[in-house]
């Protein structure tokens, strides 16, 4: 952030746009809002064009001579490849229903962040360069020519959209800004204008198999490190299998779960769950990434990164694939993977080895969400749970954008949480389920340099958390997304201190009664359980009395 703003200062937001024509409002690229450009070598590793050193604050962005032709040709090609894009360029009536649905608009008041306005940035170029009326009448027909300034403006706002699809829900024609952003980002990637926070994970994922660039042995060590924690906190020994041929199930989760707090505690939850039910499964160090930052560069890049999952499932000879908690991973798995790289006929239709439940909704793509899997286990009474261990937690659930509006997984996580946590409070209706607000940092915008943007975008979500925090004393924000776990702590710290962020599987892991465990006095983070603290205090006091 250029200047540290207090929440009160940040909240001085004017949601009334100026009367000036938006085409006359120049775009000023501000520190704290934009992300750093992609490093050339990270562009080159995956064979994407024109990796170069540049800065969004410079006048010269190092564009190739023919950038304009490339952009327009790319646009024409995509109009022919995607009916969605073509229709969304043509039929918006600018009714304004989407205007106040975007978390970035609500948090910043920047009128070009109204979804309709953001899409108009590109739509105006479509009209000005592709339609007769726009070519002849220009601005009167809402058209403008593609210039360097226009490109810079489009670039700036393409990275102020997290592809959360909330606007699409309210649009009477289903116009989806995520589609416009996805294709817009493909276009600027044609001449190397990506941001590094996306490009580097893509390059890492391509070679090492995961966004964080964890080498095979490091990946294994990190998982084993959590097993040591589990040994200490729970008292059971777990030896997770890696790259094991002939396992029944391949488990893939975002690498964030293997790397940083609090995601690693979600990982502990997975490990405990699999141990608890004696699952015949394996991790893979090669397909060690469920997330897909390729999805934030270009669809073919997403396809290339995603291809490893089926390839590895085939090599290892598993029956089906289980996927961990992640947001955009599930947009890709649910709506793209089968089309990208399927159908995986070498796999079997997923059946839970514990309950015998057939996962009908995944019978072609053969990949099941861990929360669907866990909900089924609980429903069949296959888990021994002690929810009292989570009694000190007052939990609310953040529906991640992608599993919500690109899949529709609402009941499963709530069912799981309610079975492992005695105190659950939903946030207001207009901020959850299909109407959920983004964490503010999705679609590759979870960098550090754009913290002001992230905090602004995180406001609507945080505001609803604050409501249940003040009303019910909620102190835990549960989620099924690795990006959420990475970014919501910062947002909570800023907007609603005293609220922790936890993966649903972590809460499950806390409640699981493991065979051979010792008395559980701490949770999976090693924090003392208050119930136990009271008990020890009681015994301490009684000890004193005896004295």
């Amino acid at each position: 952030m250029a200047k540290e703003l207090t929440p009160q200062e940040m909240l001085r937001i004017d949601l009334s746009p100026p009367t000036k024509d938006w085409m006359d409002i120049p775009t000023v690229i501000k520190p704290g809002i934009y992300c750093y450009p992609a490093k050339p070598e990270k562009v080159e590793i995956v064979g994407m064009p024109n990796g170069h050193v540049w800065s969004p604050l410079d006048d010269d962005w190092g564009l190739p001579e023919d950038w304009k032709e490339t952009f327009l040709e790319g646009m024409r090609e995509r109009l022919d490849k995607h009916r969605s894009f073509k229709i969304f360029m043509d039929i918006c009536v600018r009714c304004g229903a989407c205007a106040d649905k975007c978390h970035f608009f609500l948090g910043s008041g920047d009128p070009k962040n109204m979804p309709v306005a953001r899409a108009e940035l590109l739509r105006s170029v479509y009209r000005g360069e592709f339609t007769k009326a726009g070519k002849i009448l220009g601005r009167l027909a809402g058209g403008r020519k593609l210039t360097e300034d226009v490109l810079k403006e489009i670039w700036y706002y393409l990275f102020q959209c997290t592809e959360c699809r909330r606007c699409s829900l309210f649009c009477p024609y289903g116009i989806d800004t995520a589609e416009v952003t996805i294709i817009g980002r493909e276009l600027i990637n044609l001449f190397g204008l990506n941001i590094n926070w996306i490009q580097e994970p893509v390059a890492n994922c391509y070679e090492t198999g995961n966004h964080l660039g964890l080498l095979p042995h490091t990946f294994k060590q990190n998982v084993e490190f959590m097993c040591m924690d589990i040994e200490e906190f729970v008292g059971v020994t777990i030896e997770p299998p890696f790259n094991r041929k002939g396992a029944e199930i391949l488990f893939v989760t975002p690498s964030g779960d293997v790397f940083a707090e609090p995601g690693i505690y979600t990982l502990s939850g997975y490990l405990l769950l699999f141990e608890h039910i004696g699952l015949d499964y394996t991790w893979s160090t090669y397909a060690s990434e469920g997330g897909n930052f390729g999805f934030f560069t270009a669809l073919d890049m997403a396809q290339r990164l995603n291809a490893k999952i089926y390839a590895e499932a085939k090599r290892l000879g598993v029956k089906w694939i289980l996927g961990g908690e992640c947001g955009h991973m599930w947009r890709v798995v649910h709506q793209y993977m089968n089309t990208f790289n399927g159908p995986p006929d070498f796999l079997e239709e997923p059946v839970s080895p514990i309950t015998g439940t057939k996962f009908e909704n995944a019978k072609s793509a053969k990949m099941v969400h861990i929360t669907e899997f866990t909900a089924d286990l609980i429903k069949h009474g296959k888990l021994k749970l002690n929810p009292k261990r989570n009694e000190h937690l007052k939990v609310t659930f953040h529906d991640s954008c992608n599993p919500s509006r690109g899949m529709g997984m609402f009941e499963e996580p709530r069912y799981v949480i309610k079975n492992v946590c005695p105190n659950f409070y939903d946030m207001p209706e207009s901020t959850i389920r299909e109407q959920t607000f983004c964490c503010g940092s999705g679609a590759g915008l979870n960098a550090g340099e754009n913290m002001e943007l992230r905090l602004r975008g995180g406001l609507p979500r945080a505001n609803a958390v604050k409501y249940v925090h003040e009303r019910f004393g909620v102190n835990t924000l549960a989620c099924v997304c690795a990006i959420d776990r990475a970014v919501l702590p910062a947002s909570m710290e800023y907007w609603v201190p005293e609220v922790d962020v936890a993966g649903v599987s972590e809460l499950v892991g806390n409640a699981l009664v493991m065979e051979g465990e010792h008395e559980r006095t701490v949770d999976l983070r090693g924090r003392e359980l208050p119930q136990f603290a009271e008990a020890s205090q009681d015994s301490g006091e009684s000890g004193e009395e005896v004295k």
Partner: protein
Amino acid sequence: MIAQRIIFPLGVVLGIVVLGLVAGSVPALHGLFSVGLIYVAFAVFFFGFIAKVVNWAKSPVPFRIPTTAGQEFSLPWIKWSKIDNPSTTGGVILRMFFEVCLFRSLFRNMRTDLRSGWLIHSPTKWLWLLALGFHYSFLIIAIRHLRLFVQPVPGFVELLDKVDGMFQIGIPPIYLTDILILLCVTGLLLRRLFLPKVRFISLAADYFPLFLILGIVISGLLMRFVFRVDITAVKALANGIASFHPVVPEGIGAIFFVHVALVCTLIAYFPFSKLMHMGGVFMSPTRNLANTTRMAYHENPWRKPPKFHSYEEYEDMYRDYMKEAGLPLERE
């Protein structure tokens, strides 16, 4: 420039009005400005509309990307939202029915305000009401006009006419839809003019159809109540057009040509404008697809096999590390 966005389309509409008045007062132009204009406008509409839809249809739908607005079909004991998140063709048809006929998504609309540090989300139905009122009154008025073109008048048109005019206010009775469309179009225009967010995004292309339709409604009302036109002559003209034996009767008032000029502009403008949302709403991939991508294979016609970093390349790259970590290897 904002003023230009409003004044330019208003000027164009007023220009068309003047043109209609001029044509109406020169009998030699009556044929051209009634029969000629109507044939041309309908032809442009018909072929333009088809061309646009065909053009959209030419682009494939490579991915199955419905916006899921309810619980997915998943475990048998979880109640799923069959319409808002359909997994069957029947569900998709119902979803589309509610979308097209009742504007389901607009009905969902909320407004969000920031008040003393709290974002307040409250339901708002104004846009939905105005949109629904406008579209349905427009539809009914259009159907009512069949009375002029078709002889004998079909029963449902008669019935619609009776119901619409049931209140018998004034002579001739004013139709409910006439009042409704006037209110709704005015409401939609006022939104654009006075709500800052909507004003910010509104283009000339948004004001133009509103002014046109307002002009059409006003000229229609004037024809009925103020400058009465010879309805028998209008019927003869309309019948002639519909039966492709056009006649141009004498003595139709000038205001009629204003009405026709505005209507024809709207119809001919339709295929080249945002008004094509009428066709597009049926083809929007976020609405008209079932949420079955994991359940059934969806083919992308332009799919290319991906070039990716294979396991063999990966093992070659990291074999030593893997060996040391005790990870199984394909080749030692």
